[in-house]
């Protein structure tokens, strides 16, 4: 609850800060301080300390899982602001407003990670997406950015409609918006319930860009300013995933037979389309967009399996995937162009940046000793007990993903550079990037430090 309240308030603070403070660096530091405070408050709440006790009449419940997830998300946002915050200044004059919108998105994420009522889910999802429509189009003079924003808005609004329709049908079947506690009434109209549930599944698949509802993703991620793509593809996506898991775990546990196979089909399709299409991309940014679809396919295995391993694994996945992708995007925002060739010979000129990038890509590909490996390991382990075929398919797709992730490593380490031009990697950025890379490795070596927070 702490972080939810303060993030909404801090958003307002940022808006006024933009009027009062003229130096962009100060505005940025204000935002970083805000996220740090949010993270602190959230960690304090994990120890049982609350700012004010608010009675939400059972519509929100901040349990350990939600709080831990929020901590991971906020830590990722902190890394994101520290690494890419300065790149935001280049997009337009309204830095404070962008940051304010980011805080609103954060408050939406806190809501969807802890909702107990379908209404809060809808509210949270809308609070997340509406600022993102604006951020996607924030590069006002760029036609691609405008197109992406419009596309995102139309398809987002459409999927929100489906979401609302699903909620309505479920309400009709249950007579309540609450996730749990109305299990008795389920027998009343099972067909209404199933229809609503499938609409919810489709809407959530839209929001996490799972195939075959992924078509907006590459265009939007490619068109949006790279800084915001980084935010959308990582933290936001993970938060919506957590919402999906919470929804199907709490609300539809009894109907697992009805949705499980649909999720399996969606997961398989997402893995296939994401990985295969990523192979053919010529721009690293677009490749990362498809890679985010592919990674969503892996995270869908958690929804499919829906057991303890899956839920623990999702936390690990959230942390390692977000950190690695944020790190890659942070470097990408500082590159001159986004082609694979732009990375040629990077290892010779900026060895530490290249080493960090290599760790991030190895983690995304799921090579051992990185967080990405253990995250995938958890997913496979969770799914293997239910469907060996799907788990093997996911593993084969992980092998395909090696192709496009390693293209960047090959460019950095093995290919000579044509004309070296100076890139903006200063010492503090490099140090921070290395620190994030180290975190990814630590997650791969000692994941229990993270998982144990769930139980102690």
């Amino acid at each position: 609850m702490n972080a939810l309240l303060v993030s909404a308030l801090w958003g307002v603070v940022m808006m006024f800060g933009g009027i009062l403070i003229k130096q962009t660096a100060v505005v940025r530091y204000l935002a970083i301080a805000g996220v740090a405070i949010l993270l602190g408050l959230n960690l304090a709440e994990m120890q049982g300390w609350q700012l004010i006790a608010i009675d939400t009449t059972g519509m929100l419940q901040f349990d350990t899982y939600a709080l831990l997830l929020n901590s991971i998300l906020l830590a990722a946002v902190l890394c994101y602001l520290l690494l890419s915050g300065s790149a935001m200044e280049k997009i337009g004059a309204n830095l404070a407003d962008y940051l304010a919108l980011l805080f609103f998105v954060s408050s939406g994420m806190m809501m969807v990670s802890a909702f107990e009522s379908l209404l809060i889910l809808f509210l949270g999802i809308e609070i997340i997406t509406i600022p993102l429509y604006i951020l996607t189009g924030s590069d006002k003079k760029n036609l691609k950015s405008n197109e992406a924003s419009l596309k995102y808005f139309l398809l987002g609004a459409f999927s929100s409609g489906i979401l609302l329709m699903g909620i309505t049908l479920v309400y009709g079947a249950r007579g309540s918006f609450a996730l749990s506690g109305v299990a008795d009434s389920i027998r009343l109209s099972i067909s209404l319930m199933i229809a609503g549930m499938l609409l919810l599944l489709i809407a959530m698949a839209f929001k996490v860009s799972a195939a075959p509802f992924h078509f907006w993703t590459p265009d939007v991620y490619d068109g949006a300013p790279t800084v915001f793509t980084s935010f959308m593809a990582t933290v936001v996506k993970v938060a919506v995933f957590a919402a999906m898991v919470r929804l199907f775990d709490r609300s539809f546990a009894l109907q697992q037979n009805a949705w499980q196979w649909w999720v399996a089909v969606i997961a398989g399709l997402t893995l296939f389309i994401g990985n295969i299409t990523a192979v053919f991309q010529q721009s690293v940014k677009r490749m990362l967009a498809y890679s985010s679809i592919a990674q969503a396919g892996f995270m869908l295995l958690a929804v499919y399996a829906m057991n303890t391993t899956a839920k623990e694994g999702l936390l690990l996945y959230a942390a390692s995937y977000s950190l690695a992708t944020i790190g890659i995007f942070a470097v990408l925002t500082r590159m001159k162009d986004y082609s694979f060739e732009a990375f040629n010979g990077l290892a010779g000129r900026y060895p530490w940046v290249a080493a960090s990038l290599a760790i991030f890509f190895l983690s995304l590909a799921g090579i051992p000793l990185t967080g990405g490996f253990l995250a995938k390991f958890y997913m496979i382990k969770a799914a293997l007990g239910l469907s060996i075929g799907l788990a093997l398919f996911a593993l084969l797709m992980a092998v395909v993903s090696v192709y496009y992730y390693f293209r960047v490593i090959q460019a950095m380490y093995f290919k000579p550079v044509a004309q070296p031009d100076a890139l903006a990697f200063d010492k503090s950025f490099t140090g921070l990037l290395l620190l994030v890379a180290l975190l990814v490795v630590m997650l791969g070596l000692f994941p229990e430090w993270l998982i144990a927070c769930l139980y102690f």
Partner: protein
Amino acid sequence: MIALLIFLIPLLGGIISFVAGAGKKAAHTVFVLSTGALLALTLLGMTSWDQPALQRFSAIWLSSLGSSFSLALLPLGKVLCLLTAIVYFLLALYMTNKVVDRPAAFYGWLLLAQAGMMGVFLAMDALLFYFFWELALIPMYFLCSIWGGPRRIAVTFKFFVYTFLGSVLLLAGLIYLQSLTPEKSFALDAILKLKLTTAQQSWLLWLVLPAFAIKLPLFPFHTWQPDTYEEAPTPVTAVLSAVMVKMGILGLLRWLLPFFPIAAYQWGDVIMGLAVGGIVYASLIAWRQDDLKRLVAYSSIAHIGLMGAAAFAANTLAIQGLCFQLFAHGINILGMWLLVDLIERNLGTRKISELGGLAQHSPTLTLFMIIIALANIALPLTNGFVGELLMFTGLLATKSNYYWVLAAVAGLGIILSAVYTLGMIRSVFYGERNAVTGKPVLVSVPEQLVLFVIVLLVLFFGLFPQPLLDMTKEYAEQLFSQVDISYLFRKF
């Protein structure tokens, strides 16, 4: 404790080399010191520090996943650790005064690869085994891709994807096995206690086998190997073929055969058939090669084929021979690679058609080459003979209906190996000299020393194989006698 040190020394050496090896000499010094210390320690571990308490190490790690950091220096691992330590130390001596681009990274990666391989030989936990399996692969990827020949990037990537594909299937198999154990543990002992049905064994065998078959490589999983061996820098090729392929054999012997004995017997004919077929296939291709490196690469596939067949022959003789041959093959192939490297460094080519008459100018080189080549053909009095004879006998004693076909085809392979090896020696070392071979091949003192040690090892173990055989005697006898399949029989 000693098991942990065997893993830690190369790991620390690798890190030190990356950090401190800025100068050309510094990195090489670190490499020599690290490999030397490891060799000394491994020898101590074989002899005076032979107590079980010293040879096991266990620590808590990833316990919520059912894994642990447990290492042990067991007989099979002992042979392989000794081989790795010797090969690396000889390589370190051989590399004295050699110019390497970016030496800190080169030696650093080599040492990290050694740490990974030592880990594979020591791991007593399936997940840990998988970690080390990959830890050995990543350094090789960088070594081959940065320091290799002109086609290095594509070729190494093929190697990486092949191996990674095998690895993920192996991982799936291991996770499945873990989920079957009552205590949800990845420990080797826990998996060994599993009572798998015949059907389970069968499909799990095919899930796990590709990882090891690709690493070996067994026909038809071999297509990455000649390209990679050709393109990789020769010291790396030596490590790949002398040590790294042995990871596959260890995988078969420790992580496959004891788990799925029934399936191994059921599919034994097929796998042994592929393996011995691969011997003839690779030998015939080796015969037609014009490139020395490719010739040795294909000859390696042929030798590995026999080892793969022996692993599935499932009797004490074959396993005993295999354990011996693991060591002997490593030493011999290292010698072959170093000689090829010497020729290429001095004469600038490794095309057999461009070479000739080397014996006239370079008698030392010729002498070394002939002894090592004879060991490669498994002539009596060399170490190659002991291992291949035992494996051959084992193959004849296998409980397959087609044992005589297998033995005959494998025998044909041995004859062919004499054909291409002697053919190569004739055209490279004898005959007329030409413009390319006008100048002698200079063998420096450290190189002579290394080759001398190799020849010494070849002859010593050819004449006195007993110490090495004793080391694995008990292991070979127990490997199949311990397997309990009585639960599969119907109770009357």
